[in-house]
């Protein structure tokens, strides 16, 4: 059996009185892509936010390579090798593309290493190199998503949490983003991919979970989920 990178045990979270996560348990094996599907408001983003420390867990645990990080502060989790690319990209619009990337490597102690990693991201996304002096807000949606992923790669994380990278992008651009995710994964990055676009996500992922109103209602191998009648009906437009 391969090593498990990320384990959620009965994770619960609230926004005030709203019970957003009602006991989520899932596993992300090292080196795999796992997808988390669900419709609007199901709790997908909240799950990622609770993992990365933006939303406090009310109960349950988050384990990262066997280490309990449930109570860890968001800014400390980054240095462990777990990076969350939030929904809507959230790039710094008034800062340049290069500055955005540099901030992705904020926790790197060495300025030289930071520069090297920026170069590496530019090799991955040549379009960002051309636009490195432009402010982030001037990029197209697809380029902004590349910047958000590039920014996350600055620390060469072990695990990447991606929240709807395909949101609002044209099909061709979605394909390109998915190809990049695949490439990063094949280079060793473990991925937990949140998507509403189940078709795309299930093609990429080995395993999937389906979330509904704060609970996991279904899980299984992607090949099996792709054929499941309920999935086809609800998410694949069957």
């Amino acid at each position, binding site marked *: 059996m391969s090593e498990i990178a990320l384990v959620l045990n009965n994770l619960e979270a609230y926004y005030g009185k709203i019970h957003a996560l009602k006991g989520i348990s899932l596993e992300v094996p090292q080196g795999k892509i796992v997808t988390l599907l669900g419709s609007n408001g199901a709790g997908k983003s909240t799950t990622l936010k609770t993992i990365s420390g933006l939303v406090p867990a009310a109960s349950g645990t988050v384990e990262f390579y066997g280490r309990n990080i449930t109570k860890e502060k968001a*800014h400390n*989790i980054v240095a462990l090798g777990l990076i969350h690319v939030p929904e809507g990209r959230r790039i*710094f*619009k*008034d*800062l340049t593309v290069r500055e955005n990337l540099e*901030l992705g490597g904020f926790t790197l102690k060495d300025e030289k290493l930071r520069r090297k990693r920026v170069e590496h991201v530019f090799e991955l996304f040549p379009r960002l190199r051309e636009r490195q002096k432009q402010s982030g807000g001037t990029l197209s949606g697809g380029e902004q998503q590349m910047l958000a992923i590039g*920014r996350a790669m600055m620390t060469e994380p072990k695990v990447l949490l991606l929240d709807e990278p395909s949101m609002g992008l044209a099909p061709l651009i979605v394909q390109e983003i998915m190809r990049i995710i695949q490439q990063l994964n094949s280079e060793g990055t473990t991925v937990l991919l949140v998507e509403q676009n189940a078709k795309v996500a299930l093609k990429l992922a080995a395993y999937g979970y389906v979330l509904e109103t704060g609970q996991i209602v279904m899980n299984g191998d992607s090949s099996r989920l792709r054929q499941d009648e309920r999935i086809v009906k609800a998410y694949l437009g069957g």
Partner: protein
Amino acid sequence: MSLYYVILQQLINGLILGSFYSLVALGYSMVYGIIKLLNFAHGDLYMVGAFVGFGTLGLLGGILGVGWLGIAAALLISMLAVGLLGMLVHRAAYQPLLNRRAPRMSLMITAVGVSFTLFNTVMVMTNGEYETVNTSLGYSGISLGPVNVTYTQIVMVVATALLMLALHWFIKRTMYGKAMRAIALDPDACRLMGINVTKTIGLTFFVGSSLAAAAGVMAGVYYGSIQFFMGFIIGLKAFTAAVIGGIGSIPGAMLGGLILGLLETAGTQLPFIGSAWKDVFTFGILILLLVFKPTGILGKSEIERM
């Protein structure tokens, strides 16, 4: 004396006054930029800076003298001490409210409370008296015809310029400077990048407060006397300067301070009506300017309602 020399003399006076305003406005603007707080206690940090500088000069004057060496030491010590005081104010008074995502109005009222605390503490400690700042700087300088520019004036303007250049470099080039700009845009995204947001806000308070302290020490040396309410008016003026320049903008604060200083000194030379109207003149122009550019000269996004 011809009009030309009057203008030149006033230009120099305005530049000095404007430098003090700019230094204080910078801290106002930086804090507003990063946590959207109008830190009404900021002028009082300037005042505390003047007193720490005065006290240090009194203690070290015997060893270092009360010339430039002693003043430089007093400046650095005051900047450090008031910088730390600014950080303490952030940690003790503002951060607990930020953690609870308190409404902005609560933060502002807290700022007023901090202002009163600093103001009254110094008032009690000094018995509300004026203190005379004795230095050995004198009035020698360069004469341009009938206009005299003292070395003190030159050093003050140069020192301010150096502080601003250092700040500019810090904000533009260092990782913490970049983090400050990023936090102003999206603090949660910063946390996902491993940036300790609370610590970085504390650092912003340190930098802003120490710049105010620098202005306080220089103003004490320049005008020769200090008192506990000296922070009140300059706080308002610096706030004005920050808004004129575009609050949240660093170059805006620098520019706003200089414009305000120059307008005020020009106001003292108004023909016919005299200097009693200088504030009306100054603020009249500023109000007019805001009518045409509500976000301030270098402000970008619309100014948020408080």
